[in-house]
């Protein structure tokens, strides 16, 4: 299959290793940092010789941070739980709303359908700060500030356009004849949607859901402004380690490891879907 000369294959291998190193090194370094104390991290020059310790993880899990200035309460586990709750609920809601909408946009060309679809996409263009100030003000008025419901609602700005546009492409790729055939066989449109369109767009829906989950999980600015400490996700919660007595690098590293673990695991598990889902929109086959 590969007829390239040996040296070319070698070169390619070396280049690949370099790229992998470049992108994986920070993750590796974070892992290493997370099992060190602040003192060993801040040594100069840095050294790989250290006594691994789990005290950073211990501090995160028990919620007690010991610093020179004294004991500090942190709510990292609560943050982690908030992240899970917010991301899962946002994606679930976005799927419930977005998949039928994507189907409608793909199959029924009604007056203004393109405009509506594009408007929904344009939510992704606007810088979040643009909408945050007015959002904060009227969320306070209607009592949605600092609530899970309010956050999940705002997270739809992230999840819904993503799901809508990726899944729409998948629906458009299904031959309408297949759906016609099922209906002519005597099935209602609802059952055609459930039995034909949904299963055939399944990989696309999975990819879109996964991407939306990752985007929701990584979101920082919405929760920073709209939520108080007990509703904040890990991305905001990690700020707590910047304390009056210095930055707790060890704990930050451990927190980062814990917070990327779920998305990394998900992404690894569903790699194939992700690649398919992302490339399908770009290159329609």
């Amino acid at each position, binding site marked *: 299959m590969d007829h390239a000369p040996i040296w070319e294959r070698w070169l390619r291998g070396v280049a690949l290793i370099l790229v992998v190193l470049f992108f994986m090194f920070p993750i590796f370094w974070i892992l290493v940092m997370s099992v060190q104390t602040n003192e060993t991290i801040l040594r100069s020059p840095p050294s790989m010789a250290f006594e691994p310790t789990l005290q950073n993880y211990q501090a995160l899990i028990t919620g007690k941070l010991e610093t020179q200035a004294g004991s500090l309460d942190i709510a990292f586990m609560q943050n982690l739980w908030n992240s899970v709750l917010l991301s899962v609920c946002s994606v679930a809601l976005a799927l419930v709303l977005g998949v039928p909408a994507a189907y409608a946009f793909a199959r029924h060309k009604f007056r203004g359908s393109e405009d509506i679809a594009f408007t929904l996409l344009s939510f992704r263009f606007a810088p979040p700060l643009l909408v945050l100030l007015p959002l904060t003000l009227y969320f306070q008025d209607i009592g949605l500030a600092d609530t899970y419901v309010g956050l999940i609602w705002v997270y739809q700005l992230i999840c819904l356009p993503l799901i809508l546009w990726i899944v729409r492409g998948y629906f458009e790729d299904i031959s309408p004849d297949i759906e*016609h055939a099922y209906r002519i*066989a*005597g099935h209602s449109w609802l059952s055609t949607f459930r039995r034909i369109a949904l299963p055939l767009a399944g990989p696309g829906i999975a990819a879109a859901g996964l991407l939306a989950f990752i985007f929701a999980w990584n979101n920082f600015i919405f929760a920073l402004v709209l939520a108080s400490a007990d509703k904040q996700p890990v991305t905001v919660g990690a700020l707590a380690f910047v304390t009056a007595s210095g930055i707790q690098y060890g704990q930050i590293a451990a927190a980062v490891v814990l917070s990327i673990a779920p998305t990394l695991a998900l992404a690894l598990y569903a790699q194939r879907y992700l690649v398919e889902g992302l490339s399908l929109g770009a290159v329609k086959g």
Partner: protein
Amino acid sequence: MTEQHPLGLSIQNLTKRFKSDTALDDVSLDVPAGGTLVIFGPSGAGKTVLLRCVAGAIDPDAGQVLVGGEDVTDAPPEQRGVGMAFQNFALFPHMTARDNIASPLTAARQSKDAIRAGVESVAKLLKIDHVLSHAPRALSNGQKQRTALARALAGKPKLLLLDDPLRNVDAKLRFEMRLELPRLLADQGATVVYVTQDYKEAMALGDRIAVLNAGRIVQLGTPAEIYQEPATTDIARLFGDPTINLLDVTPERDGGGAIVRLSDQRLPLGPGFEQTIDHPCAIGLRPEALSFTEEADGVPVTVEAETPFNEKIVTLVTTLRGREILVSRPTGTPGPREGAARIVARPGAAVLFDRETGARIPPAPSDKAQTEAA
């Protein structure tokens, strides 16, 4: 099935436009219950659109569709009681062949045993019972086509719509299915509308053929009528292999009737063509209606080339003025291979067309017939 409406399908004044294109232009058709109508036409003629309007996959702009006497124009596809096989098969890729075929039966909420029996009987009929557990992508093109057909038949619909089902299968299979389909369709007892671009299929399958062009029905008749009395030169050219010979002629008066001249030889047109005298016409002569002759009144021609097929030999000849004519004769019959020869047309085989409009000029009824009619 207790009391059957005499018309299996009735299409009335159906019109469909896509933006500025008129796909169907005031099409009306009736198919008697249990009959087979073939819709024949070149691609883009509106055949598929017509079929989809009947199936409910496309909403017409105007007109009615009646299935078994019942107006279904506004009914959703699932309530029309039709079966349809698509040109691209349109199998459900995530279901096995069995589940594909079973889909009309599950829609009718039949019992598991009934579904199983129904699928198996139709699969046996179409000789695909050994691949029922396969997914569509694991089937050959021929098996896919049979699965699509089986799915259309499984629900025992009163109206069966077949959209060029043999288009995407190879020549051998198409030939087999052309032989097999008429019996299969007759056994079903359903009204059948069959769309095709292949004139042989149209002739083999249809009780009647509707020739569709640019959204209009240009001729409706039995296969024999369309072959022998094509309404236009276009239809004449589409039916028949080798293609009909169309020669520009201007009929002349000779004695009592009209004649045309080929290689200066008189060819009488028969009674009823007096009105065409001195009018620019085209004469249509089927290659198989011509034969070589030793008689002196034959049309002198020069043999140019001979193409032997298995069952027939087609000879290209030219007249004195270099006009090309194809002559077809069964293999095994004698004929000249080269040089000068004479040909003769079977009496009454010539069809006359208006050269400008391309429309067929039927012989005027004789005086006797006219007085009788009056």
